[in-house]
């Protein structure tokens, strides 16, 4: 048995016995080594240091909540914690990949006017886009309203005009203002989609 394995096993024993400082010693001994394992295993563009740190912390907190789940006969504590952290990492990266794919699908839909009417099931994705990318998509609060209407498949120019405060404008002014906003938003969404 290696020195580290024996030391960690002793910490595990102390944790089971209720020693309150053992958790702190465990963090000190093993948190950074777990982070190193995670960042070695994954592309840094997908997994930041902050992510890796949080995942290592999650693994340790999970273990400290349920220390009896660790079976010293089956693996070392370090391997066990790395396994927990790697599992959470895969879940995190898969969730992010799914979010990116949803966003891409949404943007692809937007690129094709014919599909906008079919987008009523994408409301949640729209909200994700609004909350995450709103700062770079919108110039003002009216842009948010216009995007929501676009994603709801709205076709009526008067509805758009009312949403941007031009309900009483002339038809020509409404058409111009609505088209300008929609074109600008679609252009920014396409740019966002290309970057994702």
């Amino acid at each position, binding site marked *: 048995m290696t020195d580290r394995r024996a030391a960690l096993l002793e910490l595990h024993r102390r944790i089971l016995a209720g020693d*309150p400082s053992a958790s*702190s010693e465990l*963090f*000190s001994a093993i*948190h*950074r080594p777990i982070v190193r394992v995670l960042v070695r295993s994954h592309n840094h563009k997908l997994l930041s*240091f902050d992510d*890796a740190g949080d995942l290592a912390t999650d693994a340790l*907190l999970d273990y400290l909540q349920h220390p009896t789940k660790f079976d010293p006969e089956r693996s070392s504590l370090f391997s066990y914690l790395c396994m927990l952290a790697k599992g959470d990492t895969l879940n995190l990266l898969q969730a992010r990949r799914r979010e990116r794919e949803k966003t891409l699908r949404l943007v692809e839909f937007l690129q094709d006017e014919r599909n906008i009417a079919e987008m009523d099931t994408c409301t949640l994705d729209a909200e994700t886009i609004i909350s995450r990318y709103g700062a770079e998509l919108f110039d003002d609060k009216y842009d948010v309203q216009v995007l929501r209407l676009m994603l709801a498949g709205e076709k009526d120019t008067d509805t758009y005009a009312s949403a941007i405060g031009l309900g009483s404008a002339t038809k020509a002014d409404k058409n111009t203002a609505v088209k300008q906003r929609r074109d600008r938003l679609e252009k920014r969404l396409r740019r966002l989609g290309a970057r994702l």
Partner: protein
Amino acid sequence: MSDRVPDKGTLLAAAAKRTANDPMFMGFLLASHRRGGFNLADIATEFGMNEASIVALALCRCPRQSPELFAKDVYAIAAHSGVSAERIAAVVRRADALAALRSGDSAQMMAAAQDEIDPPPTAPSKL
């Protein structure tokens, strides 16, 4: 890439901040002591300690409540973190008192308000 992993102190400080949301840890009681905030520098200043000591303290589990274990645990945490046992006991008791106050349990509040602990049979040399 892995060589640029943040240093241990930075990583542990971030982990310690996470414990502010977990009642199992002293970090939670420290946050309660600071009325919900967990600023390492502020706590270190208040306690007259360096931030590493506060991180070590935050990552300890809270002392067990039974009278025979409470003092033992507080001294163990003190020996590990370098923060005085009296200070730790005061933080724990204050957090308990605040929790009791919020729940309206006056008996628990009175017990929690007793922030003195009996010295251990042989006090650790760090204290």
